[in-house]
């Protein structure tokens, strides 16, 4: 069965690339464009991994991450924070509140794919 990946980002221009890439890798994809939708999709779609943008309307990536980590039911969900906030303090915050990886934009798509694969154990 294909792994499910939820892409959460309010920028359609990056979503299109991420969606294309992940589909090419054979993952099952869902997209959310804000924090609240992301929480809803986690419940309905049940992803294995989530690519989560930080700067979003309604709920920030940090808030989404915290909300998810507060619920033990989501313990198995891998979260990769994907953000334009490059300061080391923010990287530290992201990891501290429970993200499994933190990737700063712009990133190499190849490395991102490699990282996602290794996290899902499909290398």
């Amino acid at each position: 069965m294909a792994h499910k990946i939820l892409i959460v980002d309010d920028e359609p221009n990056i979503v299109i690339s991420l969606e294309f890439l992940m589909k090419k890798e054979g993952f099952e994809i869902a997209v959310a464009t804000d924090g609240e939708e992301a929480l809803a999709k986690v419940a309905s779609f049940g992803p294995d991994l989530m690519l989560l943008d930080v700067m979003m309307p309604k709920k920030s990536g940090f808030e989404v991450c915290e909300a998810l980590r507060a619920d033990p039911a989501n313990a198995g969900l891998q979260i990769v924070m994907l953000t334009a906030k490059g300061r080391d303090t923010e990287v530290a915050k992201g990891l501290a509140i429970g993200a499994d990886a933190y990737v700063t934009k712009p990133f190499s798509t190849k490395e991102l794919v490699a990282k996602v694969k290794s996290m899902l154990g499909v290398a």
Partner: protein
Amino acid sequence: MKAKHRFALAVVVLGLLMTGPFVVTSLLVWLDMKEAERDMLTGLLLSRLPVGTMMTLFGFVIGVLVLHKLFKQYVEGLLRMAETLRMMLSANRNFRVTPEGPPEVQQLARAANDLAQQRDELMDDVDAQISRAKASVEEEKNRLAALMSELAQAVVVCNLDGRILLYNNRARLQFKALAQGPTSVSGGALIGLGRSIFSILEKNQVQHAQEVISQRLSSGKTAMSNFITTTRSGQLLRAQMVPVLSASGDETKAMSGYVLTVENITRSMEQEARRDQAMHSMTEGSRSSLGSIRAAVTNLIDYPDMEVELRERFMRVVDDEAARMSQRLDQTMAEFSDSMKTRWPLEDILGIDVIAAAQRRIEDKLKLPIKMEELDDTLWVKADSFSLVFALVFLAAKLQDHYEPRELRFRLSSEGKLAYLDLIWAGAAMSSETFYTWEMETMQVGGENSPLSLRDVIDRHGGEIWYQREKAAHRAFFRFVLPVATPEVAQEQDERSRGANRPEYYDFDLFNFEDKSIDLDRKLSDLTYTVFDTETTGLEPSNGDEIIQVGAARIVNNRLLRQEVFNQLVDPERPLKPESIPIHGITEDMVRGQPNIDVVLPAFHEFCEDTVLIAHNAAFDMRFLQLKEERTGIKFSQPVLDTLLLSAVIHPNQESHKLDVILERLGIQIGSRHNALEDALATAAVFLKLVPLLEEQGIMTVRQALEASEKTYFARIKY
């Protein structure tokens, strides 16, 4: 015994001396004689008695005359001399004894005169020495004050209680700029001698800094402390504190006060914040777009055989995001260009001052005449004036060498945030290569070298320079583009001219000032006063007349501080009476738009804090203030002295105690009068003259002055 009585006694003694021995001898002889001898003697004597009596009387008269003469010369003469000597001792130093009378008295007089002479010389000498010493102390103080006033930093010296002993002009301007509110002095940034620094700087922070310094002092470290504080108006101040150590020669030096240098860093902090924002917008703002582009491009490269539709979408992403990035870049540059400039310390300087300096150097060094075209003489630029002037002289020298212009011209104009400084000459066209080499070579004029090139100077200013021809006029110019500056603090001249003398910005006697809650039993000359006057719409406060101007000045340590004044027009919110306008000279136009009394009174109250109030005919002014108590909640509860009553205390028999009359009586020259501030200053001058006169009458303290005032007739008038 009085001299007269002694004279009478002497006369009696003389009489006894002349008759006594004869009478006694006669009596003894008489008692020894027989009856016959007595009869014979009587017969002999009686016939010759008149002659003897005559002789005796004659001798007596001569004796009295001699006695009288001696008395006049020695006793009365010496008494007179004694009086003269007393006079020389006290009233008139230059008085001398006239040598007269017998030689011995004259000698005494001369000796006394010589002594007086010697004393005068000594006294003159002492006076001269004292005034020399005073002058040198005064000179040192003045030098210090001058030094302080020239400093570009705001400097405030305080004693340990936080009372201000010295401040410089920069501090005054800076804190004045901090003051907010519509009146001339308000907003809690009151600077003044004897005032508390805590109205400006946070007390806790100042005291903390004081503690830090004490600790550093005791551990032998450099005693200094820095802190940043926010004012009530939200400005950021950076203060540096260094201690003033007591002058005593003790091993352990105690702190007796401190020097604060204060810098308003609100502006630079804002700039820092803007710079930060710009950086942020450039970096993080670009990350998203770049991320989208990079992902899209990688996909395009990695999957060349994707569907056409998808390929087009990826291309659009690249196009779209690239456009967004360019737009953001433009926007950032436009918004933040000011804060992105180089950080070379540039000063704000009038453009024409740069030109004037360059003109002098060029005419002096190159003997090249300079003419001026349109100059915007209000234009301030941000410049490093030394290197900029050097660059102008360097270009002038280059032009002189290559094109031999007969004269050069300057022009100064501006467009938006940019100032244009043009150096114009008439002559042949110049190649861009030539200008390029000029731009890059290190500058040299005559024997003077600069390590910089023209390009360096331009870069340092964040400016630009180019060469341009005015074909029609057959001439060309170099255009320096410099950033326009908005000068931070406008210099005020009016306040400098108010005091004829140098500004009273310091008072070191305040070092030993105790805390200043008003103590009625302190000497009059020791207290701090606010002397004030009001102008009003009329004379009947209870009938609706209102204050239209409040003027006040401070007396600190027996000195009138002409720099620390309160001068505020007030909108009475009712029409002025036409008949009163000639008296106060204040017209409708002047009061409209001014703050009303509800605003002015709190500010004036703050100005008066911790001082005794003084006014001429104070009851009148106080009545106006008291009638506002209920409405404004401001109560003037401090003691009030009235110069009218004090004058009546000193001169109870004089008919008039009007301010003008008193001024004349006390010999005080005052320029113009009849505006509130001028009258307050005049009243202050009167009070300072009255203080020593009151002391002569034994009125030393405020309490005594208040009691004496109450007893005068005038104190019974009510408004």
